[in-house]
């Protein structure tokens, strides 16, 4: 599903974000990526959907060879990956429904199929009644649900989430986690960078810990392991 071999990433300013990372994540897994701020978590995640390119090493995501991927082909890769961010990244001037439909419009899906599929995911995230509302009128938790719905609408093989609960209060965070759990149960792989100790320690999954650009721990049903 996702494989990295000896991946190095050095930014133009000289900071070495990743130093020889090897990892294999299989289909259907639920993986937490933990570690101190600036340890390389974000870089690790960004490499998967080709926002960043590795300096050295090879990455495969769902059969795509990331470092050989042509600029033109990046959209094809991204359509098979759902991405969820701490700041939701919703298009503010589009309604909830339009935001979700956008991911299907880019693949030129038929209008009828778009309507149908959008209604499905809206129901899954419990926002059917908010379809025609602008993101700005929603709470943080609701906005994150919209962004999850958008990530899901293409039936991606993997959802990559960068601190999806970072801006949410504990109760809302749990709602969102339950949603991810449900999505994972339906077979979608989930890779999630997080700082939420309580969640990692309660909802036990595989934990990959990154420090100073290297994987220092990789446990089945692991714990958070940091004191923040």
């Amino acid at each position: 599903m996702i494989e990295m071999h000896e991946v190095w990433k050095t930014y133009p300013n000289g900071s070495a974000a990743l130093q020889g990372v090897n990892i294999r994540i299989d289909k259907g897994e639920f993986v937490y990526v933990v570690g101190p701020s600036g340890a390389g978590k974000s870089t690790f995640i960004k490499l998967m959907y080709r926002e960043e390119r590795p300096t050295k090493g090879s990455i495969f995501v769902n059969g795509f060879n990331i470092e050989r991927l042509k600029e033109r082909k990046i959209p094809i890769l991204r359509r098979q990956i759902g991405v969820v961010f701490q700041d939701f990244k919703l298009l503010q001037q589009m309604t909830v429904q339009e935001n979700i439909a956008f991911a299907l419009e880019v693949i030129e899906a038929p209008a009828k199929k778009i309507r149908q599929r959008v209604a499905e995911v809206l129901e899954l995230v419990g926002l059917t009644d908010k379809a025609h509302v602008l993101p700005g009128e929603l709470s943080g938790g609701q906005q994150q649900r919209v962004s999850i719905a958008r990530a899901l609408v293409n039936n991606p093989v993997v959802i990559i989430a960068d601190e999806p609960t970072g801006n949410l209060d504990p109760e809302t965070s749990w709602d969102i986690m339950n949603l991810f759990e449900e999505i994972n149960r339906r077979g979608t792989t989930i890779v999630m960078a997080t700082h939420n100790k309580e969640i990692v320690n309660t909802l036990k999954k595989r934990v990959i810990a990154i420090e100073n650009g290297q994987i220092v721990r990789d446990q089945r049903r692991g714990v958070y392991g940091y004191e923040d």
Partner: protein
Amino acid sequence: MKISTLMRHWREGFKNLGRHGWMTFASVSAVSVTLLLLGAFLILAYNVQQFSLQIEQQVEMNIIVKEKSNRADVLSLERQIKALPGVKEVTFIPKEQGLEQMKQRFKDNADLLIGYEEDNPLPDKFIVKAEDPQQTSALASKVENLPLVKEVNFMEETVEKLFSVTKIVRNAGAAFVVGLSFTALFLIHNTIKVTIFARRREIEIMKLVGATNGFIRWPFLVEGLLIGVLGSLTPIIIIGIGYDYLVRNVGGVMYFYFAPLDPLIYSVAGILLGIGALIGMIGSVMSIGRFLRI
């Protein structure tokens, strides 16, 4: 691309105008101001062009025929002049007619000319206009070499001066139109760049969801086109009304009359609409380029 996708891009382009209301207003205003300037100048340039054409049309040469030439030879001369390349029209004025014209000009003192009918001192002459008035001088030197031609008059210096002035006016006009077009392009490009800069997050999100560059670019292209077209409407109306007022109330300068509103206004409207649409699209596509590399 599917028809439904194309329609989606048009819909989005239209919606974006409303979503970014103030940005739209700013861009449309920038387009309007530059196109108003350009349009006003086009009208001016056209009138100057007409004016200089009118003057040039009046340029003609008088060909004086040698005295005591017989009529048959003169007629053969006329054929030779007509056969020269670049001759537009040839009018033969026999000396009798010349005398007649002179009498008319003298009016009250026409009796001074009594008696000249028997021994007419005037020469036969031809009045010749060149196809291209600028070629008058070249044509004159050709005519001079024909037999029976005594002399050719065309106020050489005045005419050459006139041509050099009209040439300068024309070239300056062309340069001005090109310059203004570029200024308009630059202004529109900049305004749209500001609006796109405000929307780079939007573009980034679209790319993360898997939109191709073309897919993102299309609505912007439509938007640019619409901004250009909208921006050209106000200047067209202002110029139409303003010029109509000028034609009706001022009419002209000295002995030159302004070109009539119809059909000039249609050409100007077409040009402004076309330039507006074109630079709207170019401006927006140029502006978006750098933000697509995510």
